[in-house]
């Protein structure tokens, strides 16, 4: 905006303001009505959902799947997607939000056109809608997929329906148990300190996998306390990785 446009805006605004009404009581009444609605919604949510407390924090568990509150799902999702390219993970989880914040911060300084009507600001409209859609999509998919710990690989094509069910159950146990913190499976997880599990069944038979899970080499924790069915699902899943 140049000086003339600024002055034109101020002139126009002062007329519109003079044509208006006093803040008290007109705007205050509307704000008050809105405040009542907000209060009712909060009370309603509290009565309906309460504030449940989960099991006590236990830093020694390896089976807990972390989940943030819903308004961080989008970040969570970025983390999950970007985990596939480990080199860029820090860049994506910190870098992308930081850049977005800076862009938001500086908005009035690079969008300098005097036009205020959204239908005449095509770039702003497109950017706004894209941002809303992206946030909504990321939040939605963040809410519907597992944690960064979940395993995403294709099951072998030869499995029967029953075997497939066990296979998926086993993949879930891998996710819950935090195996991926130290092992890589396909494109999931960290490569090390544990050996890669991508083709583990080629070199280690199922019985030996089971015994390793019971009596592992430290620092890997033992999984002998898993419920038997979970343990078997886990062993079955690992024995299909070739």
């Amino acid at each position, binding site marked *: *905006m140049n000086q003339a446009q*600024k002055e034109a*805006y*101020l002139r*126009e*605004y002062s*007329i519109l*303001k*003079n*044509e*208006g*009404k*006093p*803040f008290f*009581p007109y*705007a205050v009444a*509307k704000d008050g009505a*809105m*405040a009542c*609605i*907000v*209060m009712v*919604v*909060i009370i309603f949510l*509290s*009565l309906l959902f*309460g*504030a449940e*407390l*989960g*099991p*006590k*924090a236990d*830093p020694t568990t390896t089976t807990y*799947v*972390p*989940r*943030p*509150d*819903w*308004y*961080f799902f989008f*970040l969570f999702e970025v*983390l999950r997607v970007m985990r596939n390219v480990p080199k860029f993970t*820090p860049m994506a*989880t*910190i870098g992308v939000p*930081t850049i977005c*914040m800076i862009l938001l911060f500086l*908005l*009035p300084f690079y*969008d*300098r056109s*005097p036009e*205020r*009507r*959204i239908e005449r600001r095509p770039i702003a409209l497109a950017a*706004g809608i894209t941002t*809303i859609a992206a946030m909504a999509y990321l939040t939605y998919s963040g809410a519907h997929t597992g944690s*960064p710990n979940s395993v995403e690989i294709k099951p072998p094509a030869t499995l029967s329906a029953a075997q497939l069910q066990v296979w998926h159950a086993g993949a879930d146990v891998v996710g819950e148990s935090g195996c991926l913190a130290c092992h890589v499976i396909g494109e999931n997880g960290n490569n090390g300190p544990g050996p890669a599990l991508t083709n583990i069944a080629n070199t280690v038979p199922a019985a030996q996998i089971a015994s390793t899970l019971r009596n592992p080499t430290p620092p890997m924790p033992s999984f002998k306390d898993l419920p038997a069915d979970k343990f078997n699902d886990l062993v079955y899943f690992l024995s299909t990785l070739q």
Partner: protein
Amino acid sequence: MPRIPAPPLPKALQPRPKRPGQDVEAGAATPVEAGITVVDWLDERTALSPGIRWLMWRKVPRGINWAYTLGSATLFAFLNQAVTGVFLAMYYRPDAAGGAYESIRNINDNVFLGQFVHGMHKWGASVMIILIFLHMGRVFFYGAYKYPRELTWVIGVVLVILTLAMGFTGYLLPFDQRAYWASVVGININAGGPFVGPFLSNFLFGGADFNATTLSRFYAIHMLVIPGAMAALIGAHLYLVTKLGITAPPWLKPGADDTDHALAEAEV
């Protein structure tokens, strides 16, 4: 004693003229008159009335609609967090050895209306996040961040970041499994950031890893540092809003009838 000038009330709220025969000189003994005397006394010493008039009897432009209430609704949600937070703080103990979890359990199970207030704080946070983003959306689509309101916007962006930081630090406090693991993952994400990442995570953990002081650090940040900063910034935000005036809806033209969109359209 000087009297404050009468405010420019709308017709409906102005005091009715006295009916003929009514006693006009009832004296300063009636409650209303006594109240006015107190106000006059205060004003003579503080000179606050011009400020209050400036704040309350400024004009808002023609055509203001419900979307303009989102800012004050956010403020209201913030106040709700402050009040319910004070009550929670009366019972909460930031003790990672188990006291924190037990104190929340106690709030939920034993304290009168404890779970209700805890729930209002928890859900109020979500409501505030939704409202702040809606308010930001209104400002964005109405082009209200443009000259001369750039600084109002910049302060607003800082407020969004602080609000999210409140959500992040508050999530750890109940110290259940969900709280603990989400915070550990969250801080580790910070640690991966370029340049400041490791320092930030070191600061949040209060060391290299999760330890006994992490929880009290989060608590201090959550209940003292960020709310203090937010209160100050909201004050600055509202000062600017009042000083610069609230924008008119961008489709309005001066002089045109605000019920007639087509007319405003045709003029351009």
